[in-house]
């Protein structure tokens, strides 16, 4: 069966900036592919190439077997796009935005109106249907943008950070919508900064950073890969933090992260067999324990391990500094847009 999305060796440069340095992506039909990465990693650029908005400088990409460069017209009939910045017409009402798209897609006047009303209902926008979009709140705009990308009943849907800036309830709604679409056979490519979102929705995840692919796999595979399990030890007194860390380091070979604030020492462990030895060592070192927990690594830790950066939006106080690049995405957008 043809893959819904298949890209290999995608390269895109904007002047001196390399946004993508050879990225491969594969999405199986009817699944969610999560594209994860910090700001400026190249996520949006990849989506824009797959949506026929940008031509890659190298590599090739196919959507349902159609080449995004040479068969852009076919690809456009298959896809729906929700950009990172809501691309709806501010000057039109919500319903007219959707009718316009329906008409552009060849729907009849009546058909376009019916489809628009149905989508507005589904996205809880019926009351605001007649109001100009410029009076909408950020969340409403984003929902309308999502609705707009579904007017044509797309087979492949690109969601570029669809829940950024949404309140928790709207986020859950979007998740439910994505699950519903996938059940109906739609393939979704989802870029996100939120690891829990990828964990919740994605069947496969690719992690990209600096325009390069740094990991692929299912959420579980990725969690297993980064040490698999994490041991968290809380000594009964903060005074024993250093001693605890030393014991864990000697038995795992990894320098553990000691958090003085929470009083936790955290370290990845390859397998559970070292646990009795660690407990004995701690006992011999005179450390009383308040907590001793073994758990599966979270995607946050995967992210940290892979990119050397804390997951964006998760607070960067306890991670390595100097990784914050909030300007970069905007910079690339600027480069993409500016006339040459």
């Amino acid at each position, binding site marked *: 069966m043809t893959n819904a999305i298949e890209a290999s060796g995608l390269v895109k440069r904007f002047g001196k900036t390399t946004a993508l340095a050879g990225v491969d992506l594969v999405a199986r039909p009817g699944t969610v592919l999560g594209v994860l990465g910090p700001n400026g990693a190249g996520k949006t650029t990849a989506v824009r190439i797959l949506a026929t908005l940008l031509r890659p400088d190298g590599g090739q990409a196919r959507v349902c077997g159609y080449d995004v460069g040479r068969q852009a017209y076919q690809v456009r009939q298959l896809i729906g796009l929700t950009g990172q*910045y809501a691309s709806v017409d501010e000057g039109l009402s919500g319903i007219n935005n959707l009718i316009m798209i329906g008409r552009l897609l060849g729907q009849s006047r009546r058909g376009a109106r019916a489809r628009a009303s149905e989508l507005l209902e589904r996205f809880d926008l019926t009351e605001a249907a007649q109001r100009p979009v410029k009076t909408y709140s950020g969340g409403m705009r984003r929902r309308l943008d999502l609705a707009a990308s579904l007017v044509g009943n797309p087979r492949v849907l690109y969601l570029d950070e669809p829940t950024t800036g949404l309140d928790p309830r709207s986020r859950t709604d979007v998740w439910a919508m994505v699950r519903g679409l996938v059940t109906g056979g739609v393939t979704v490519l989802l870029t996100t900064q939120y690891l829990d979102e990828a964990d919740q929705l994605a069947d496969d995840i690719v992690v990209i950073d600096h325009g390069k692919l740094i990991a692929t796999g299912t959420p579980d595979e990725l969690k297993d890969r980064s040490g698999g399990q994490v041991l968290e030890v809380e000594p009964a007194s903060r005074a024993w933090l250093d001693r605890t860390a030393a014991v864990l380091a000697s038995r795992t070979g990894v320098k553990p992260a000691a958090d003085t604030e929470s009083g936790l020492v955290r370290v990845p462990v390859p397998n559970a067999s070292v646990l009795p030895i660690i407990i004995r060592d701690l006992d011999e070192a005179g450390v009383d324990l308040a907590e001793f927990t073994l758990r599966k690594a979270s995607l946050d830790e995967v992210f940290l391990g892979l990119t050397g950066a804390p997951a964006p939006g998760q607070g960067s106080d306890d991670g390595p500094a100097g990784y914050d690049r909030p300007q970069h995405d905007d910079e690339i957008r600027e480069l993409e847009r500016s006339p040459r």
Partner: protein
Amino acid sequence: MTAATLPFAEPTGRLNPLTGLRNTFTLTWRSVLKIRTNMEDLVGLSLQPIMFLLLFTYVFGGAIAGGTHAYLQYSLPGLLVMTVVFATLGTGLMLNQDITGGVFDRFRSLPIARSAPLGGAVLGDMVRYMISVAITLGFAMILGFRVETNPVSAIAGCLLLLFFALCMCWVSALIGMLVKTPQGVQMYGFLAMFPLVFGSNLLVPATTMPGWLQSFVKVNPMTDLTSAERGLLTGGPVGTAALHSVLWALAIFAVFAPLAVRAYRRRT
């Protein structure tokens, strides 16, 4: 009925030209709807000509022509030209907003004719020009302006204005494609249009101007257009001026439309 239960359509091979034309009309409908929803635009479209009419007639009229009525008869054809020329700025403004606001990204991800967003914007603006011409002429009549020729000439005058605006708006479209922000479009647009509009016989006869300026006035297309409008609305020779206006409009179109389309292709 949900998206999930519908079967997916197989993509078709080529965009047929009729579909492309229909796309253009859908986007024309959009531009026209936007005039209605956008109050500022509507107010600007109607109040600006009214303000110009009042200002020029009552502030300058007496000093220039010795009487407000005489001056209104003289200046109205020029004010009509000024109104549509300034109104063409809206084309570039809207295109620029569409690009910077991301609406064009949406259009480009749809299977529609690539020229449709541009064509729709230009056609939709024809409606705006008609509104400004109608308001200017209507209000002038309230102030006492009279057509001294006949209805057929007057209608021909209006059509000539619209034709000129249709060609002229490609200058504005080009500016809209080249400049980064809507504010920039406004500034460069006015920089380009002010000398053209005021360096002409639009509001005063050129006879009092210094020689170098008179030479500019003579070659300025606004001068030909204004003379043609005067002839068509208040009598006097029409032929040469009207012919020159049409030729000028075609020349402007021939130069700027391809440039704008090229810039559009690069930017979108």
